[in-house]
């Protein structure tokens, strides 16, 4: 880490650094919004921001395909769904619920913090088996080939899972015929 600052950086590198930390700060703030805001709808907006930030991070990591998918799925589908949910349960969220968090706030905080401490302590000191990127990076074509070759089986399974989830959601949400 220290050598990072000791070396001279190109402008592109500076751009990368600054944008990364900027996006990271944005995401953290948005994430905090998600878990703390009283208005659940605002929380959903925070989640959308986190998702967008994550997409930017993906772009930064040369995963363009994934970035677009991220935007499509999260912002396009998940957040929309959540917005629906919020609206459908509007009365419950606004009427009675004064408190937004439960009784185990403090203890949860301590536990999460300790977990965080443990990991934040270990992550920098761990030696990651990184390689220098040479040659072609994985692109959408590589992924598509992989999905239809080595990962064909999980791919099919996940599609079935989606189907099952779809049907299950319909069955659960359907009104019981009286």
């Amino acid at each position: 880490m220290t050598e990072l600052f000791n070396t001279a950086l190109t402008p592109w590198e500076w751009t990368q650094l600054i944008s990364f930390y900027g996006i990271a700060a944005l995401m953290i703030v948005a994430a905090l919004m998600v878990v703390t805001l009283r208005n659940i709808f605002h929380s959903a907006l925070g989640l959308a921001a986190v998702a967008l930030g994550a997409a930017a991070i993906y772009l930064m990591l040369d995963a363009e395909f994934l970035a677009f998918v991220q935007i499509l799925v999260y912002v396009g589908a998940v957040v929309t769904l959540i917005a629906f949910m919020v609206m459908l349960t509007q009365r419950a969220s606004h009427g009675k619920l004064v408190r937004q968090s439960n009784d185990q706030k403090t203890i949860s905080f301590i536990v999460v913090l300790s977990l965080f401490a443990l990991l934040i302590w270990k992550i920098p000191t761990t030696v990651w088996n990184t390689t220098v990127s040479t040659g072609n990076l994985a692109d959408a074509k590589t992924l598509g080939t992989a999905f239809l070759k080595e990962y064909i089986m999980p791919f099919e399974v996940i599609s079935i899972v989606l189907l099952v989830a779809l049907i299950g959601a319909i069955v659960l949400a359907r009104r019981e015929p009286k």
Partner: protein
Amino acid sequence: MIVPLAHFLILSLIIFCIGLYGALTRRNAVGILMSVELMLNAANINLVAFSRFVSPQSGTGQIFAVFVMALAAASVAVGLAIVICIYRNHRTIAADKIDLMKW
């Protein structure tokens, strides 16, 4: 990439911990669901980062991330249904009011 792997991991960790905290403390079921989505996103960041730094040619981590997204979408869909179902039956979506698992 000038930003080291550890920084991505730390970002991911922070978001994960925030999500976890939310999942543990929010009373609103939709909030819990959103917190879970946060955690999944954090995990995805991890996967993509590892993919980029460890095996940039194969993109295995990205493939994993795609699967996680699919599952996330599925879980949201089912979660929505469950929440609506619970709301319909209990007139509440406060997680600490729903203790059906006690029996």
